[in-house]
């Protein structure tokens, strides 16, 4: 039953994919009017004007491009022509640096807020004001203060991944069942042992959910941040290929961003399942 269900779902997925590819192929068919012009002028005008061919690449071209990238992901031919693998590695490294920094800050502060109603009240106005700020709005300030574009991107990732983790940790810690804390009290468990053996495992599923939201946001923001700071990374790659008018590369990059984002999310989902306990 479940087997055939999965099979049917997969079948529908494949059909939808084929339909999409077909629609794509049809949409970029040569259909525009072909003008007669001077051959010298035609060279300047490109294929869309001379042959009526769409500037948008077809699925086959994109597929071929992806294959190229997969065969040689780590080439390096100067600052404006690096392999997709290298660009991704830069982006992932920045995301990880900013994200782990945010974990190191958000979880202890979240614990503090969750355990102390006073600190929760006191910090609440700051969190409420800082949370809705678009992370990119910090960019000029970061560039001015840090004076390093790569580090500024890391800072932007840090600031955008901070809030979901902070809020989820505080919520998870604050909403621990009183009876578990009472168990710890009747067993005369000390503060640190209680934090690690009762509070942390009890709040872990909520904390991990916050971490999962954060990694998603971080991966969204890194593309925009790298478009601004330039130099390396998948966001810069997208912008650079746009300037090169290589729509094929842009589409390739979009797909790759999606796949990496999904992989990051799945890693966190796996970890969340690991710490979730049935009740």
């Amino acid at each position, binding site marked *: 039953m479940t087997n055939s269900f999965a099979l049917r779902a997969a079948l529908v997925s494949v059909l939808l994919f084929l339909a999409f590819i077909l629609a794509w192929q049809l949409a970029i068919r040569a259909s525009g009017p072909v003008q007669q012009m001077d051959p010298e002028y035609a060279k300047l005008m490109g294929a869309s004007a001379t042959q009526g061919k769409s500037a948008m690449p077809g699925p086959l071209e994109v597929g071929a491009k992806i294959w190229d990238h997969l065969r040689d992901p780590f080439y390096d031919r100067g600052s404006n022509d690096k392999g997709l693998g290298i660009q991704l590695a830069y982006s992932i490294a920045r995301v990880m640096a900013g994200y782990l920094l945010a974990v190191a800050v958000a979880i202890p502060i979240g614990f503090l807020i969750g355990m102390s109603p006073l600190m929760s009240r006191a910090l609440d106005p700051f969190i409420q004001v800082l949370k809705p700020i678009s992370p990119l709005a910090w960019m000029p300030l970061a560039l001015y203060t840090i004076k390093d574009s790569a580090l500024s991107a890391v800072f932007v990732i840090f600031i955008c991944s901070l809030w979901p983790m902070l809020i989820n940790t505080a919520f998870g810690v604050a909403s621990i069942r009183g009876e*578990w804390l*009472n*168990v710890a009290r*009747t*067993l005369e468990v000390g503060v640190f042992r209680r934090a690690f053996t009762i509070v942390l495992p*009890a709040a872990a599923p909520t904390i991990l959910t916050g971490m999962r939201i954060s990694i998603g946001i971080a991966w969204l923001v890194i593309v925009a941040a790298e478009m601004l700071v330039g130099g390396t990374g998948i966001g810069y790659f997208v912008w650079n290929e746009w300037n090169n008018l290589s729509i094929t590369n842009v589409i390739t990059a979009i797909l790759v961003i999606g796949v990496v984002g999904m992989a990051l999310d799945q890693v966190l989902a796996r970890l969340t399942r690991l*710490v979730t*306990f049935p*009740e």
Partner: protein
Amino acid sequence: MSADHFISIEGITRRFPVGDGGETTVFEDLWLAMRRGEFTCIIGHSGCGKTTVLNILAGLDQPSAGTVIVDNQEIAGPSLDRAVIFQSHALLPWRSVLGNVAYAVASKWRRWPRAEIEAHARKFIDLVGLAGAEAKRPAELSGGMKQRVGIARALAIEPKIMLMDEPFSALDALTRGTLQDEVRRICLETGQTVFMITHDVDEAIYLADRIILMTNGPNAVFAEIVDNPLPKDRSRTDFHRHALYYGVRNHIIDFLVTRSRGFAAEADAFDRRRVPIVRPGVPEPMIASGRKPARARPVTPPRSDLHVEGETP
């Protein structure tokens, strides 16, 4: 002195603040003494403050006035000497059965090596009949098994007192019966002192040596101490056929149904420090002389600071 006053509740009062600055008094000036190795049940309507009394004994709550002395020491907070069995079992769901019991053992004996902790925990898991289920998570256990783990966890730290807050109320009748047997067996074997809250009159009669009747709140009091006249070696299958069973049962139910509400009316000369002790169903000399008591009458408390009844022949 200390034999009769192993646990001594001395004039405890608990008030809670209510809206606009007022406060409500759950109970006021409660006095009670319990002996070592005694099984005490407390019975009363919901909201009378039974759980608050238990929480104060556990150290999880503080009285607004008064004090509780256990084994000559004033209670100053939760302690490993007093184990609590929670109504909702309060097991840690991310730990296995063994993990839950071992957590308590490791909390008591912090320097023990892991192997010793686990061996000690297993001993108590065996005692409650859960051998073989050590690796299971609480979610995989039935309600009765979860409560067994709770009992094993409480016993494993070898406490001076066990405090039980309606431990069996969430269980089906059959499981409840088995667990009552187990608890009674274990308590008799180990001489454990127990203070238990219950709503179940039969449970109280089966398990308890003495049953405290508590009036309705607010301003609840311990109205009477019912000294259980049933023999110590009673069994669950036939204790309700004992000649004195209905006397005790009717006395408690009469209290719960009528007297618990209007107790203030009876309380003119009521001495909170000497809660009357009654032995319902025990023939009293006055019956022989032709006077018929309407109900069981209080045994006159002996003259002492705190009333504790002497051994009745």
